[in-house]
């Protein structure tokens, strides 16, 4: 058995109980990142983590949507999954969010193709510059998991604004960041006076580090960026919520008063 075949067997064993596709795209850099992580010395553990963690994120997203869209009202709701990558979470969404209309969006054309062709999802290609991003429709929920944990300060706020524009009135923008709980894992980097730190490199080695690196943003920084670029109510904040270290922010778009 070749190494590739061996991995496919491992993936199938991990994915089948969860009822999702076992395929992992060769360019999906999350897989080698997990495989090389010291927490998973055995490839079996890495495979189990890849699929089970995606399922866990989908479950959390489902809870989040139910909290903010309302119980029993998620059917027919529209979700934009931004920076969906090669579908580590996306593949679990049909089971976690039955009835929710999902559009997955990523900057990698190959990822978009993979999610559409192999995972059966609706997709769109993202843009490098936030001002160019326009999905031509609005959503009940726009969700960006571990996207702002890679943004430099210059585009952090503009991307918030771009994604917020895609939220329909009454909907929410939900995103995660590297926050204070991420500090130790990032090597306790020096946070500047604005409450921000950035390093121009990430596990996504195919992307320009200056555009997509690794960042840490304190709540003070995030709230200020929200105020500057969005001006919307912060509906929810949970420190260290995602993967026990990334902060979750949920921003609501009010329904304009009538009359």
């Amino acid at each position, binding site marked *: 058995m070749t190494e590739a075949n061996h991995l496919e067997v491992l993936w199938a064993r991990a994915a089948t109980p969860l009822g999702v596709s076992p395929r992992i795209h060769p360019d999906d850099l999350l897989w080698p990142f997990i495989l090389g992580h010291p927490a998973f010395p055995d490839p079996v553990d890495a495979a189990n983590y890849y699929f089970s963690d995606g399922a866990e994120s989908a479950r959390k997203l489902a809870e989040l949507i139910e*909290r903010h869209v309302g*119980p029993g009202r998620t059917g027919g709701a529209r979700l934009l999954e931004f920076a969906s990558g090669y579908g580590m979470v996306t593949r679990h969404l049909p089971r976690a969010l039955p009835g929710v209309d999902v559009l997955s969006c990523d900057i990698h054309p190959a990822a978009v193709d993979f999610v559409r062709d192999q995972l059966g999802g609706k997709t769109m290609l993202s843009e490098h510059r936030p001002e160019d991003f326009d999905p031509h429709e609005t959503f009940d929920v726009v969700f960006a998991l571990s996207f702002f944990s890679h943004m430099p300060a210059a585009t952090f706020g503009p991307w918030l604004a771009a994604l917020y524009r895609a939220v329909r009135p009454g909907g929410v923008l939900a995103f995660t960041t590297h*926050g*204070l709980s991420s500090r130790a894992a990032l090597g306790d980097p020096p946070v500047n006076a604005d409450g921000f730190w950035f390093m121009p490199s990430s596990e996504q080695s195919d992307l320009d580090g200056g555009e997509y690196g690794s960042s840490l943003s304190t709540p*003070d920084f995030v*709230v200020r960026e929200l105020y500057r670029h969005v*001006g919307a109510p912060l*509906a929810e*904040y*949970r420190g260290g919520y995602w993967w026990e270290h990334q902060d979750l922010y949920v921003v609501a778009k009010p329904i304009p008063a009538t009359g």
Partner: protein
Amino acid sequence: MIERIAFVSPPGCSAFMGELLDVVADSVQDAGFPVLRHGGTVTDIDDGVTGFVVVPHEYVAVAGRPPEAVLARMIALGVEHPGTATFEASLATAYRFGARVEINAESVTEVRHRGVACERFELGYSPRWDRRRPDDRRDIDVVYLGTADPRRLALLASIGPALARHRCELFVPPHEPMTQARPDFLLAEQKWDVLARSRILLNLHRDESVAFEWVRCLEAICNGAVVLTEASPDFEPLVAGESIVVGTAARMGALADALLREPERCEAIAATALEVAMHGLDPAGSARRLVDIAKSLPAGPAVRIPLAPAGRQREPDDQPMAVWIPTVRDCAPTPGRRGPAGSLAATLPAAAAARRPAVDPSVWLDVVCAGRPGDGPLGATLESLHRDGVSVHADLGEGREVRDTPGRGLRRNALLAASTAELVLVIDPGDTVFPTTLQRIRERFEPDADGNRADVVWTMARLGTGLVNVLVPEPRRLCQFDYLTRGYVVHRDWLERLGGFTEDPALDDLVDHDFWLRSARADARTVLIREVGMQLWPQLRVERVETPQRRPRPAGTSIESAS
């Protein structure tokens, strides 16, 4: 000749003074002289050959001035500190007594300086105070027992963050006559038990006084606690660094922290202090001198007035309100304000019915944080709440014109309706919570042995340079003062029972005051954690507020007293 000494305190007098009279009476009795402890007036029991020891200003304020013939047989026991108004009141009253003793050396000097004869009654070890246990288990790191005044509260506020990582019990009752124990004012067994469980007694001077608080400190020493105090000219034979720890107010927090890191040093200082109290002070000698003083007073015809004049004795509810309390704002709410108008509370029950879209068991605490212009930075608040299981729901009113921004109460109710956890922390943007505070609050919501649980739990909080949320909620006091504010955790069931926060625009500045007033009137089960657990954004100043009763009284009639 005087044949016995009666230690007299009329009903309505300070319980603290009564305890002090007990200890002095013990010493005299140990000296072999007949004593009597009487709760009433001197003319209840005067027989012409009894000398009376009273705390002068308290006695006269409560029981009235005794006849001249009896005054000659009375000994004033002065307990107040030079530099305070109560010292002046005490001396003005004691001037006409047959004799005077003071428990502080500095007071003796001051009284004599004014040409009035006076002796020192030196307190020391008393078995009455000693509640040390064989296991010497001390679960309280720092205890504070002192009435509220602006200076002390400012100091406690500055020390608070340094103490936050330790287990503290800050008992800070209002500065008013205390005739019975209350949650923030301990008496006798309760007090001594707390001292026997404490490692450090933090001692801060009141107002302008620098006199050593001998009674409180000896009670602590007798119970094996280390006294950490501000400097005083009056603490000999205790020695700084050996039997007590002395520091400037600014260093109190650091000193407490350092002491607690060195338990052996703590124990050594406490042991040395106890040795001084037992053998370096001379209450027995003082008792003998007191007996001699009493014997020198003129015996005479008995003056009996069996019943106190009507109206002399105060009922608890008839007591004047506080001399000073830590309030939130610089004007008292209108006395008797009844809380929200009828428009209140229509929304929350409806919201409650619609809420809980998806209860998330991983969230044990929802934080509602509704801001207004002038509030502080939300980011600082979020950073302080950076803990698992805490979900913050904020509404800063962005995207709206100020004039269109709904009131804080209405927006809090909306945030409540969108959240799910059983417990709710109520704060405003800019407020920050110290690291261990929420866990300590959570523990206090555990049901007791009878299955009862708290409705509201809160800690003291820094606000500007002062301290607020210090006193327990009392309806009659809340009718006069806005002294409890945000910075509390409330059980959702209780909030819904109240109908949520007031949405009355007229009460938009008093949303929390209204919450506390209605909670107090509805007999909420409230628990104050006696620690400084939060820093509130300084939206409002802490000001001195005086009630009408606080206008200066003629000397000799004041009953202002404090521990």
